[in-house]
């Protein structure tokens, strides 16, 4: 019982003061990684991917339609 009370009282104590500084090379991720570049990179990638895909559909459709026109004029021309 006394031991439990002692443990509970110990838990209420403020943490002991820092007696020394320990150098680390890397900061914790929460402090070292800025969020804004990650956010900008994510949205930029989405737009680049969608616009590239739109361009690729437009290019492929143009090619097919050009082939159709070429074939049409070939079949219409006298042999």
């Amino acid at each position: 019982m006394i031991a439990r009370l002692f443990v509970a009282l110990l838990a209420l104590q403020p943490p002991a003061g820092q007696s020394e500084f320990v150098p680390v090379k890397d900061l914790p991720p929460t402090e070292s990684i800025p969020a804004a570049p990650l956010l900008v990179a994510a949205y930029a990638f989405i737009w680049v991917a969608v616009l590239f895909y739109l361009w690729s559909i437009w290019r492929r459709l143009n090619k097919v339609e050009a082939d159709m026109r070429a074939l049409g004029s070939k079949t219409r021309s006298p042999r």
Partner: protein
Amino acid sequence: MRKLFGPLVVVAAVMFAYAPVMIAQAPFESTMGLVQKIFYFHAPSGMIMLLSAFVCGVASAIYLWRRNPAADHIAMAAAELTALFGLIVIVTGPLWARKAWGIWWDWDPRLTMSFVGWLISVSYLFVRKYGGPGSDKLGAALAVFGAANVPFVYVSVNVWRTLHPKTSVVPKLPPLLRGPFWFSFFAILVLYLLLLAARVHLERQRATLDELYLAEEES
């Protein structure tokens, strides 16, 4: 769909112009802060990826059963869009995870199964492009497996222990986060329908061109 295409382009343009305003005005999430705003396009892209894999699988099953060319055109278009939206999910997810979890990637069930789903769609496209005769049927079988993977991707966060947020996050969104999320989702859904229609049109034109070449050779 041809009559709806023009109005839907206008609707999509307006929605994509306004979505950044709504996302910017949405409050920050308490633990993740600014980087959580990736969620507004990441999660809807993931939902559209799963929808597209399902559409591809169903259209492929119809093609295997009935040999209907229209179903094959839809499957081909949906597979390409699964690969596109899957790529968006796979790139934006790690950008979010780097800040939120401190790592770019983790082989947890949700991430691994999403990656497998994306690989199936890319495999489908490779099979269709380089598979030669019979690749349509082989690709269709692959797409059915891709669709079978969809429910597993969805429930993976609820069944297994994973770093990824659970599916309950979306229905439990507070009103100030819910508005921008569903607005972004519907903007991406409209974009998906437009891209699907355009890609199906391309596939139909290719089929017409092949028929013209065959007719030209026979005459």
